[in-house]
């Protein structure tokens, strides 16, 4: 069974692109977060990126920084996120990618992390600050290949390096839409098109594009060239604007539907 592979195949047949939804686990609190995530998965998110909060998120803009800080204040840890994963998995078959900085995983223990994440039902892991050069120390401890290590490619990545990165990738490839941290604006869809094309020339894997995508129009534009569209800060901003709103879950769910609609060609 490979949920990621099956999902992309399935979408291809439906002539849809994947809506990849990122949320920080445990924000605004663990129970609302769980309800919200399950609802998102049931209403259109094709791949869940579950963010593990970190004290020093150097690749993230202010919106995700604040969301991380709230989650940490709620006592969210990698262990708890694995617990949440298990609960989400009980409710949905949507592929789950754990999204993390390396230090929390390192502190948890690489081998233990593999075991527990897999058992909980995760499908992959994306480690923002673990480039291929450093990744072996983690994957070498893994007792199998049940988890995909999602590789990132950036606009600054030269062709040769792209190829090299693609070689060790599995699941899908994450193409960063632009230089800058998450949530920064100024999306250039023609540039994304070029980068996607370049990346396609070195990999057979599906390509998901993320960073700075916020409107359904953005989604449609990116969906036209990529296999998946990642939405992160846009969800987080909505969460932040509705922290105490009892309708938060339905507001987010509604937004998921709008985005999902835009992924259908």
């Amino acid at each position, binding site marked *: 069974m490979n949920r990621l592979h099956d999902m992309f195949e399935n979408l291809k047949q439906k002539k849809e692109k994947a809506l990849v939804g990122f949320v920080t686990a445990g924000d605004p609190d663990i129970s609302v977060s769980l309800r919200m995530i399950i609802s998102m998965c049931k209403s259109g998110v094709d791949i869940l990126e579950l963010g593990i909060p*970190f*004290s*020093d*998120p*150097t*690749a*993230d*803009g*202010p919106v995700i*920084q604040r969301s991380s800080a709230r989650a*940490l204040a709620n006592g969210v*840890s*990698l*262990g708890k996120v694995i617990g949440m994963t298990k609960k989400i998995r009980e409710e949905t078959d949507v592929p789950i990618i754990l999204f993390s*900085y*390396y*230090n*929390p*995983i*390192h*502190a*948890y223990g690489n081998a233990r992390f593999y075991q527990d994440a897999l058992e909980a039902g995760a499908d992959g892991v994306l480690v*923002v*600050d*673990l*480039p291929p*050069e*450093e990744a072996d120390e983690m994957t070498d401890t893994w007792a199998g290949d049940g988890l995909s290590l999602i590789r*990132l*490619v*950036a*606009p*600054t*990545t*030269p062709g040769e*390096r792209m190829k090299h*990165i693609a070689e060790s990738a599995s699941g899908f490839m994450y193409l*960063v839409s632009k*230089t*800058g*941290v998450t949530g*920064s604006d100024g999306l250039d869809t023609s540039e994304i098109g070029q980068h996607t094309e370049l990346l396609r020339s070195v990999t057979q894997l599906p390509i998901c594009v993320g960073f700075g995508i916020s409107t359904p129009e953005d989604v449609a534009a990116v969906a036209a060239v990529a296999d998946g569209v990642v939405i992160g800060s846009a969800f987080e901003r909505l969460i932040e604007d509705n922290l105490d709103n009892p309708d938060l879950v339905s507001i987010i769910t509604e937004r998921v539907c709008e985005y999902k609609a835009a992924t259908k060609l």
Partner: protein
Amino acid sequence: MDKFEAENYPDSNGHFGAYGGRYVAETLMPALLELEKAYYDITPDPAFQDEFHGLLHHYAGRPTPIFHAKRLSAHLQGASIYLKREDLAHTGAHKINNTLGQALLARWMRKKKVIAETGAGQHGVATATVAALFGMECNIFMGTEDIRRQAANVQRMKLLGAEVTPVESGTGTLKDAMNEAMRYWVGAVQDTFYVIGSVAGPHPYPAMVRDFQKVIGEEARGQISEEAGGMPDMLIACVGGGSNAMGLFFPFINDTVEMVGVEAAGKGVETGKHAATLGAGSVGVLHGSKSYVLQDENGQIQEAHSISAGLDYPGVGPEHSLLKDLERVRYVAINDSQALEAFQTLCTLEGIIPALESSHAVAQAMIEARRRPKGDVIVVNLSGRGDKDLGIVNQNPELGS
């Protein structure tokens, strides 16, 4: 003790044994690879070295002297203490050695903008200084809390033409400033050179900063032989990120000389309010490299605490982590009040107002000197001057005045 073969580190991936490396977002990797190439290709170029050493000499005021602190030594009735006077370098600390090197490299790489993080403001001032010297645009990231505490250095940076970007996130201190500098760099990496202020950060920074700082130890080697007639018995330096310490230690690393790195124990290591990363931290990844860090059991980085803003950092350079494991360097910690006492002692016995960072090294030297015979020679890196700390010292009731 195993012989530490300095020339083996870092390896080709920037690892110092189990430490170091490049734990950064993919967006930055190409820039780091470009920088690594420049570091290996350009910095050894004799033309680069000539220009660098010319600036160190004519601009930064090197060589800085080594001074036999006779009254302090007599007071302690033990080993002779010699001070390596980095406090006399332009801008008031050893930081200028490194910023000159990096800015010069940036110029050779045709970068027109530099950024830097700063805590106490010393590295920020040193970066703003070289940016002015080379006519580069300069943006300094500094936590809002540090901006409040270190107003004079903020003013200096602005006078030097730099932009100072306040960082509100986290606790508004050095760690947050470095986070924000990295975030900014991710967005501006194509034309911007990030001048990191210590032997921390991703490869090649730890090696490169060490190499730009090793002039301290190279000079000290020659000077102490001349002044004291041989190799010293012990070297002592404070360790924040660890650049002044690496600068002093590195050229002696294959000699039989004891080395002591002094971290900040803040209010006491047992209170949890300290910055003794090597002494009380554990291995982790922060700001692009693997090393000892202060973190909780979940891998969340913890706040550091020290009266000295320059040591108030929960990370440490990866080479120090290796040196600790190899037991080539002994790492100890000095608390706030010991540092203040050493500060005052050096003021009144030698007429030198040391930086609070450097006061930690002096405090340890006072302990070591007392234990050792008169003939022994201890070299202390006086990494900076204390003018910047007058406000902090002033608030301290222990120092009557």
